[in-house]
């Protein structure tokens, strides 16, 4: 297990997402009401970037094919996506967002 620093909490507006690339990982970091969630950025269905899609409550819609996932669990909400999106364990220390890999 190692801790990977992604960004500062202030980098992500509430109800928004940013894309963070670190090592081999390309991640979407979400801020939902002050809580942070991290998913793989590339949609499990195609080459869409989740950090660029619209957020509806707890759900992120991929704007390539309009499939969607639950941001907190990675579960599929709407097709054509069928494979759950990978989620990461998030740790926030002071003003910094980390994942544990």
């Amino acid at each position, binding site marked *: 297990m190692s801790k990977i620093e992604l960004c500062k909490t202030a980098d992500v507006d509430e109800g928004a997402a940013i894309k963070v690339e670190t090592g081999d990982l390309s991640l979407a970091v979400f801020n939902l009401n002050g809580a942070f969630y991290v998913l793989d950025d590339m949609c499990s269905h*195609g080459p869409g970037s989740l950090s660029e899609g619209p957020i509806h409550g707890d759900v992120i819609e991929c704007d*390539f*094919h309009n499939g969607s996932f639950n941001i907190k669990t990675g579960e599929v909400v709407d097709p*054509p996506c*069928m494979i759950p999106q990978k989620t990461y364990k998030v740790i926030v220390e002071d003003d910094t967002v980390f994942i544990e890999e």
Partner: protein
Amino acid sequence: MAKITIIKSDIVYDCVSDTITRAATRAGLGFPYECNVGECGNCRFELIEGEVSYLRQNPPAITERDAERKRYLGCQAMPHGDCTIKVPLRDHYKSKHLPKKTHGVLTEVIDITHDIREFRFQLSEPVKFLAGQYGLISAPGVEGARAYSMSNTGEAGEQWHFQIRRVPNGRATGSLFDGMKIGESLDLDGPYGMAYLREDAPRDILCLGGGSGLSPMVSISRAAAHSAALAGQNIYFVYGGRTPRDICGEEFLRELPGFGERIHYTPVISMVDDPASAGWTGKTGFVHDVAEAMFGDKLANFEVYFAGPPLMAQSVTKMLIKAKVPGSQMHFDQFY
């Protein structure tokens, strides 16, 4: 000639009478794409600077939101002069054999079923391909190219064979089936597609096909049967049709070394109550159900290749996810 610059990278490539995505693939870049005919939307890019127009007007995959965000489909967008674009390149989309535009002369036509026919083309210059890949065929008198998978193997690349199912009232297949004569030629472009045989995956192989999905599954089985790297692996080929007159494929597998030993063929029909199905003693139902019943928990040990009508591909994907087959072991063209 236009120069295409990808921002946030040092990459600049040439685009000569070509689309943004195809030119990138020809240049050896991993530009995302899948169907190549404007249907799937995987080749979206953001136009930062420059001007493009579409090869196919109003491609189905484009939405209003794309227009607002200046996003275009790369497989259909032709640049007018130099362009700067934003797109995330990925190695997954690189083509081992770079696609080329060639001409193919029709040398032979073979009927396989009542609606599937094999068309064999001799290329004006050899273009190699990987088993399971597809080419773009411009059928005479039909606007826009169509994607069809090859059925032979492409280590020489002199001939490309296509097993094509006639689409009722389809213009492209109508032109091929009724209009093309031996000795005539048409424009070919390829190879494209990521659903090719993984020779570096040391697993048993499961090929699931229906309808027009015959062609790539035959190609993959042929290449796998002759691959030294896959010599120890079993190949299971499950092919579905509505009634027995749709069933085919066994004749191609029988020619392969190891048929009946490590190569196994299972036909399935879905319209059991149709009078045309009288006397059928084989498996019945849908391909995904039959594959699930045959292999159950062992599915996750397979490298799975599949091709067929959209509903079949969706049902197969769902079944494989339920069976916990990793996405990296599923190979199919996402044509929609």
